[in-house]
């Protein structure tokens, strides 16, 4: 269970001190992976709340923000703000303790309430610059691990250029009855000229990638393709449309998809991907 693990990790981190060895950095990355709001703060009250929308309990504490290390752009959180934190365990933090808090957003109103994933007491006072660097490095580790896992799942990884975009012609036998809905993906096909076959492909090859052309909200986060677009593409065998094959120049070829945000990366990410593939 992640909360328990997080506590153990936090304890590990607190015992290890700084600079953190690789195991501590790994533990920190585990916390970062589950967090979207990370800040250094000082506990000002326990069993209390800073916003009226949250009931006080033995798991709620008020923390004064000393430095924000990571947060979504939408969230208004600045040094000096008081944040309500629902801790993993009651009594785990005392007033006056300064720590790095790894959290997820919980309630957003007149103030911010977050749920603790874990915390890293470190030495007090926490050296903000050091901690900022450590969290940033952990975030890079997390991103690399996510990308590596994604690469491993991909059938093909290529750097290339979109030569053509056309409506997808899905095989009639596999196609579902035509449904008129605002959520219709409006499948399109991008023909990509492979310039660099990084995994499962060769330079000069052409591949067909299906993507939703629909502007509907259901597909808002899904990568779209345009003629002339260059990039590094992580391609997956098409198991979504129900029609696994397409045509190029009269030849039947496998169709692929790239539906995750990590499936379409800048062209200059190709060396990073090669490096991740080689990395044990």
């Amino acid at each position, binding site marked *: 269970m992640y909360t328990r693990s997080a506590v153990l990790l936090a304890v590990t981190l607190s015992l290890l001190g700084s600079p953190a060895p690789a195991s501590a950095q790994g533990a920190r990355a585990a916390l970062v992976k589950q967090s*979207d*709001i990370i800040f250094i703060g000082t506990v000002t009250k326990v069993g209390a709340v800073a916003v009226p*929308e949250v009931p006080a309990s033995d798991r709620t504490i008020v923390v004064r923000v000393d430095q924000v290390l990571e947060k*979504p*752009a*939408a*969230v*208004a*959180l*600045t040094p000096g*703000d008081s944040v309500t934190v*629902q801790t993993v365990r009651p009594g785990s933090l005392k007033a006056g303790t300064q720590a790095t808090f790894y959290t*997820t*957003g*919980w*309630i*957003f*109103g*007149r*103030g*911010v309430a977050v749920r603790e994933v874990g915390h890293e007491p470190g030495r007090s006072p926490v050296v903000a610059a050091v901690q900022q660097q450590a969290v940033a490095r952990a975030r890079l580790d997390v991103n690399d691990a996510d990308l590596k896992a994604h690469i491993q799942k991909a059938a093909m990884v290529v750097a290339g250029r979109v030569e053509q975009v056309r409506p997808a012609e899905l095989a009639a036998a596999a196609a579902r*009855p*035509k*449904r*008129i*809905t*605002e*959520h*219709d993906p*409006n499948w399109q096909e991008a023909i990509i000229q492979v310039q660099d076959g990084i995994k499962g492909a060769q330079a000069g090859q052409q591949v067909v990638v299906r993507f939703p052309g*629909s*502007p*509907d*909200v*259901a*597909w*808002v*986060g899904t990568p779209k393709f345009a003629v002339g677009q260059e990039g590094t593409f992580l391609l997956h065998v098409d198991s979504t449309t129900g029609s696994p094959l397409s045509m190029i120049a009269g030849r039947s070829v496998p169709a692929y998809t790239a539906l995750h*945000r990590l499936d379409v990366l800048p062209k200059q990410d190709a060396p990073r991907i090669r490096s991740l593939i080689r990395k044990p």
Partner: protein
Amino acid sequence: MRARVIVVAVAVCVACEAPVPHAPPAKLTGVRVVDLIPVSLSGETWQDAEPFLALYAANPQLMAASAFTPNPGGSASATAPIFVSDDGGDSWTLRNTLPSQGMTADITHAVGGNPPVLYAGIMKVPGFPLNELKASDFLSPATMMLQSSRADIDQPFVRTTGVGSADRVYIGLNDFDAPDGRTATVDVSLNGGATYTSRRIETRGTLGQNGPSIRPAVAQDHTVYVAYFGWRSQTGSDVTSDVVVVRDDSGASGATPFRDLLDPSDHLPGRLVATHVTIPWSNAPTLGQERIGSTLAIAVDALHSDNVYVAWADRVGTGDIYTVHVRRSTDRGATWSGDLRTLTNATDASLAVSTNGTAGLLYQQVTGTGSTSRWVTRLEQSRDGFATHQDVVLATVPAATPTFQFLPYIGDYNGLLARGNQFLGIFSANNTPDSTNFPQGVVYQRRVDFPTHRLLDGSGAAVAVSIDPFFFSVPVLP
């Protein structure tokens, strides 16, 4: 003296009302307009479209609202948010309690008989299955409980009523797995969502499916009306449709529900309110950056179920893009008026009837053209079938900015409800903090600077204009 604009609607003029710009009416006493985005999300720039509202009759302080607002934590978050208010709509908080990854692909909701129970119908991300959800306490941070789920549906639309201690839940939806292309469906629960039964309400032939909007309305005597589009044929992107209303006189509790209103033309269940209308189906920016094709609303006088109103939008063909029509029945749907209101280049019509019988019509209309076009959001009230009506402009904002991030731009629907002596509703609009955009006044929770018309983030830096949801309340005509 209360400032009020009464528009005397001469029938001919009403029928050909053009979307010409005109000076907004004077400020009406007692109107509130509140931007829902809380101060702690002042940096928010998302397109918070398609808002919806749920109210508790027993506790006027409690409200729930939704929009296509994402979990601020990002698209990988396991939950999506709803807004809640515990002070009658003056302030709102965002809580991540919906079991959907980051955001939903559709959401509506309605309250249970005992506050703070809340029912929701969502299209869950990823995969977009229907999730029929319940929260015993919507103020709780706990994730809403899944009661039923299935794939291949569209636009779940939730209404509720209480019978004794049990909540009855009616979720109109377009069920693509329904047999014979008769996809208009109401999922009915007579036991607080513990079990649902899918009731097919289309009895005529279709082009292979019905339109996506299936809208229930429930009266206190348990009469349930449902409006839907009977899609009959298609030419290109234009669908030829009937506007149909079915009725059930016992809360859809019988074995063959929604069969109590027959059409005299074919004696089949489902009164044909309008026939052979042209629905322009467009999933592209078509009207003020908005898509069109599914505007449909129904409201019943909760205390007098004989009285029921329907609104829909189609293309008349007089150079219009999309035209809203409003009609009324005073005999339980047996006969219907002609158009009481005809609103050119309008969409997102919502209806409600207050306890004193006043009808409310919320709609959003594009005025002007090109870069000077505006989305005008109005609430009209009438005591006489819209022969006369009070007209309140809630917002008049640029329609060309901001550029759409996705569709719907402002929503395939918005929300209007009545409680006591108030119409309460929600709409989405350009959030520029400019007082002239909100003739009735506006309250922002998020940081703004009215003199410079700027949105500000937590550190005081400028934030880009976007689409926000706005709650409003308007006093019912006495």
